[in-house]
């Protein structure tokens, strides 16, 4: 079954750029996550709910993605959903 993923609403996370990494403080859990690209870019695009295929296409438009793969992206999205940084809505 497919799913759409979306980033937390504004204010639910605090973001600190630590070039090249990014620290994300998740208010609901009180946990800090240090993430590498393209996670911040994914979260920025997921302001609107997207399927993994739609997200991959959007990432491909903006960034150089030599090995874009829907299955791998879905796995990463599910990991982010497990720690609360994205929400998964079944469709």
């Amino acid at each position: 079954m497919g799913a759409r993923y979306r980033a937390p609403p504004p204010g639910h996370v605090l973001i600190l750029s630590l070039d090249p990494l990014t620290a994300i403080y998740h208010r609901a859990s009180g946990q800090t996550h240090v993430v590498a690209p393209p996670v911040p870019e994914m979260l920025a695009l997921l302001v609107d709910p997207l399927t993994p295929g739609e997200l991959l296409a959007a990432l491909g438009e903006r960034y150089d993605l030599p090995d874009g793969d829907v299955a791998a992206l879905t796995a990463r999205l599910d990991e982010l959903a497990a720690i609360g940084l994205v929400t998964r809505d079944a469709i």
Partner: protein
Amino acid sequence: MLRIGPVGFRIGSDWRAPIGALGDLYRDYPLPEDGIVDFNVRLFAARPWRRFVRPAVTIGGDYMLPDALPLPLAQGLLAAEMGMNLQMALAQRRYLLLHASVVERDGRGLLLSGVSGAGKSTLAALLMTRGWRLMGDEFALVDPATGLVHAFPRLISLKNQSVAVLQCAAGQARFGPLLAGTPKGDIRHLVPDATAIAAMDRPAVPALLLFPTFGPAEAVRAVGAAETFVRLTQASTNYVALGERGFATLRRLVQDVPVRAIDYADTDSGIALVERLWRELA
């Protein structure tokens, strides 16, 4: 009872000797304001006969580590110091705590953060003998509301070779007894100078953060924001407990304060390097 910076302690003991040693070494420190303490430390015998037979000091207080090993009575002073550190590490919530020594000049603070053995205490004590104000050799207390670092100038814990280094550099200073064969080697405490005690209520603006390593040949390395952030979360005893305030406090440090990692092979060149970086960066 005594007050160190903004933190008041009451220390109780089943034996007189550790309290006597503390009272002597901390004799110039103030009492907690209004007699109200933040933390209690209790040095006690885990079994009644351990007060007398091979007396062993268990460290307790408001907060305890369940599996901490007791120390022999001859190291009672160390037990009291560890007891105060333990309360801070386990329960301080007013400030973000970083394992770092801090010295100050012109209202601006130099933070030296590193693991045990990196030379935090030795460098801070030597800088104290060279006109810097010592703010602490163990914990930097960073106020989440202001970003200022507050002093916590407890006794300076000198270990092994650094005892002789400081006896040479600070001959007039007061030292505690030599505590031989502790879990961290030979320890001797150095009493912070009168300036450190008199000015301990005055915070400083963090102006330079150094991560020293003692041993390798002299080197200076730029430290990126990500490494600084992760190192400081590891150097903090209460980052997680402070939640969002901890994140915001680290954000300010990472964004505002210049950072370098330094290697130094001996204390003289280490001090020269620190003072050079201070002139260049702070």
